[in-house]
């Protein structure tokens, strides 16, 4: 049996490494995506002050610190039995919109999008933000930089710092928004709506206008039938900041809808000896191995997971585009992994529109931004991180020190599905033991669509991951190394 190792030097949860095992006739037998790093937050957060949790846990991810910051803050609301003021909830949501704007732009233009904009077969040194600028023009490049910065600026105004904000408190937020800053945010948000519309137009022109790409999106190699999970509001529309967790089955029917505090009744995680990250699945359905379909408890989260799990978007333009996507891709749910990119842009538009709405809300500049907390206890906080549903669960002692912590982070939810997507892409693209350069790109595309956290650092300016494939024969002796 041959062993093919794709060793992407990526970040966040460390380096992701893919090992693909081939049968004697050169067909893919199985694939393993290993995450070889762990940092132990669930252990060293024990004994810390409750109010430090939004600061400590934001260091799990410097790309999505706002998600951890507010999942933690909401867990503290619950643990201290305090309801944040109405203005505080709106300010948190506004800051959250800023974060989604920044993060989704980052992914579409710097990481995932270049696959489409520059082209999946383009040389690796072109499939990056500089390649995007080359293809789309410097003026557009500057707009990308500007709007990504707007998202960060919104977080900075409300949170103190853009990366690793400081404002979350049980019962509210540390500071209210003044009129001058409100106007600045509103101006940026309006500009982001236009930029999101432009980005969607670009997607339509370049991706949907090219039948080859559309065929690729719809192809079996990139199709995975799973359950989907996401937070929804009272109307079952997508919501990033608050609501109930809804799960739909592979046919799109509602399977579960639960309060975040009940997550332990619905999600369990399994441990494998070959990776440091755990594998969550739906308790009711059970673990049936790395398989899709109704009988397997594997579910997906993130942009496509949210759109599939919801009935629609809460803003006008995003809803229009939501309908276009499902019409184009053949109804709900969409199982194409590459549709994550489209879903992400629809969410970008929603976040920008929602930010404008919140800026126009007269309550947004209210100074009633804090309620004082009650006695410390236990609480769960859930938000939708850019990459999916994020669960924080804390138990506090009588001094409001942390007694216990449980975290299920966004990418972890997708981990079983990412493993399958990578395996299936490899199965579709490796035959007779032939491993081509194009294959590396395609396998990479399969997991990049999820914007996985362990690839976060590849968000960076020139956004490429070096990969190594090592091919072993059945005696496990190295035959060949493919690198780029």
């Amino acid at each position, binding site marked *: 049996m041959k062993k093919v190792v794709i060793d992407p030097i990526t970040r966040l949860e460390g380096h992701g490494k893919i090992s693909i095992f081939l049968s004697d006739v050169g067909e893919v037998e199985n694939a393993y995506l290993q995450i070889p*790093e762990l940092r132990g937050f669930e252990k060293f957060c024990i004994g810390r002050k409750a109010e430090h949790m939004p600061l400590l846990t934001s*260091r799990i991810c410097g790309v999505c610190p706002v998600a951890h910051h507010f999942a933690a803050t909401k867990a503290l609301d619950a643990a201290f039995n305090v309801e944040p003021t109405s203005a505080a909830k709106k300010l948190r949501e506004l800051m959250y919109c800023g974060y989604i704007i920044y993060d989704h732009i980052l992914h579409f233009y710097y990481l995932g999008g270049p696959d489409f904009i520059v082209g999946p077969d383009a040389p690796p040194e072109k499939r990056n933000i500089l390649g995007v600028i080359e293809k789309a023009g410097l003026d557009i490049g500057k707009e990308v930089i500007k709007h990504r910065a707007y998202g960060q600026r919104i977080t900075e105004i409300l*949170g103190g710092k853009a990366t690793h904000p400081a404002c979350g408190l049980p019962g509210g937020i540390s500071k209210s928004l003044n009129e001058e800053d409100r106007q600045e945010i509103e101006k940026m948000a309006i500009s982001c709506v236009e930029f999101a519309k432009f980005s969607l137009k670009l997607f339509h022109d370049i991706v949907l206008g090219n039948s080859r790409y559309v065929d690729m999106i719809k192809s079996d190699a990139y199709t995975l039938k799973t359950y989907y999970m996401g937070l929804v509001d009272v109307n079952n529309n997508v919501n990033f900041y608050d609501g109930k967790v809804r799960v739909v089955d592979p046919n799109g029917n509602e399977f579960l809808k639960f309060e975040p505090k009940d997550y332990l009744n619905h999600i369990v995680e399994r441990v494998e000896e070959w990776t440091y990250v755990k594998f969550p699945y739906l308790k009711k359905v059970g673990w049936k191995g790395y398989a899709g379909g109704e009988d397997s408890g594997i579910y997906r989260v993130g942009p496509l997971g949210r759109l599939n799990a919801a009935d629609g978007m809460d803003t006008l333009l995003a809803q229009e585009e939501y309908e276009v996507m499902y019409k184009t891709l053949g109804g709900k749910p969409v199982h194409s992994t590459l549709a994550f990119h489209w879903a992400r842009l629809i969410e970008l538009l929603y976040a920008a529109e929602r930010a404008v709405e919140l800026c126009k809300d007269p309550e947004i500049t209210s100074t009633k931004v804090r309620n004082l907390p009650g006695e410390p206890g236990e609480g769960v906080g859930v938000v939708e991180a850019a990459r999916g549903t994020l669960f924080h669960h804390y138990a506090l002692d009588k001094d409001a020190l942390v007694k216990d912590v449980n975290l299920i982070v966004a990418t972890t939810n997708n981990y079983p599905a990412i493993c399958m997507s990578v395996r299936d892409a490899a199965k579709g693209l490796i035959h007779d033991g032939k491993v081509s350069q194009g294959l590396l790109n395609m396998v990479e595309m399969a997991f990049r669509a999820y914007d996985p956290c362990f690839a976060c650092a590849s968000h960076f300016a020139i956004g490429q991951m*070096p990969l190594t494939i090592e091919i072993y024969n059945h005696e496990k002796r190295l035959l060949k190394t493919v690198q780029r």
Partner: protein
Amino acid sequence: MAKEKLKFAFYWAASCGGCEIAVLDINEKILDVIQIADIVFWPVAMDIKYKDVENMPDKYIDVCFFNGSIRTEEQEYMANLLRQKSKVLVAFGSCAHEGCIPGLANLHNRKEIFQKAYLESKSTVNPEKNVPKTKIEVKEGVLELPEFYDTVKTLDQTVEVDYYLPGCPPPVNLTIEALEAIAKNELPPKGSVLAPLKSVCDECPRKKEDKKISKIYRVYEKVPEPETCLLEQGIICMGPATRSGCGAQCLKVDMPCTGCGGPCPNSPEQGSAMISALASILGLEEEKEKYSDEEVEKLINQIKDPIGTFYMYSLPASILRRKVMKE
């Protein structure tokens, strides 16, 4: 003849990715960076392998920006390799500088961390008591994982470091100033921290009245006055013991400094510097010549989780370094 371009390298070890975002946050100035420097190694961004770095002549790289702490054998190897290949090695951000928040893992060891993550976590079902192993036989063959060390180390506990850019993450203006100093060849003496010599208090616009405090409040217990010193309102603020450069950003949203900028130049042990600052203002309401042991204990007991409070970012670099584990 045009001036020869500088050669930059970027590397990350154990970190959260925020330092990379901090570089990105210089926004359009990144275009200026590309004007003055070629980036010769950047694993997240470029197709250059470790092997290519190994083949570089010694001191080939002009400046290497290294973020993240050292926790695995591979990270240790890369720190040594990049030291050898770089004229200037910069510890970029709090993890490389001091170990930062992930350095709080030094209160435990691998065994305890595994126990919690894989066996005791509330959502985990693991009747076979599996934990990840460095070498694992699966049906199709053998898979390997790198070993997870017991202790988090800073960069300068591993190799010699020339400069430090503090902060979690480093403030944008400090990054830009450092890049400009490099471009103009105006870097300060080796060993310098590339940040102002002042403390966060010096940058903080809040008024100080040299008030004593007798009661300590947790941030959620009290809505602070907007314009006066938080410490003098009884909220522990690491400002007096923390290096500035951030513009006291957290204080602008009415939250205390938690110390990510690292120690001030004259008192390199940040935690003890803060304990001493606190000792100088904490006292009983009524003036007293001498406190009883009971009174002292009562005052001190108000401070919860001193390690997490005073050493949130600096445990691996501190005199404490880690908890001694007894088997």
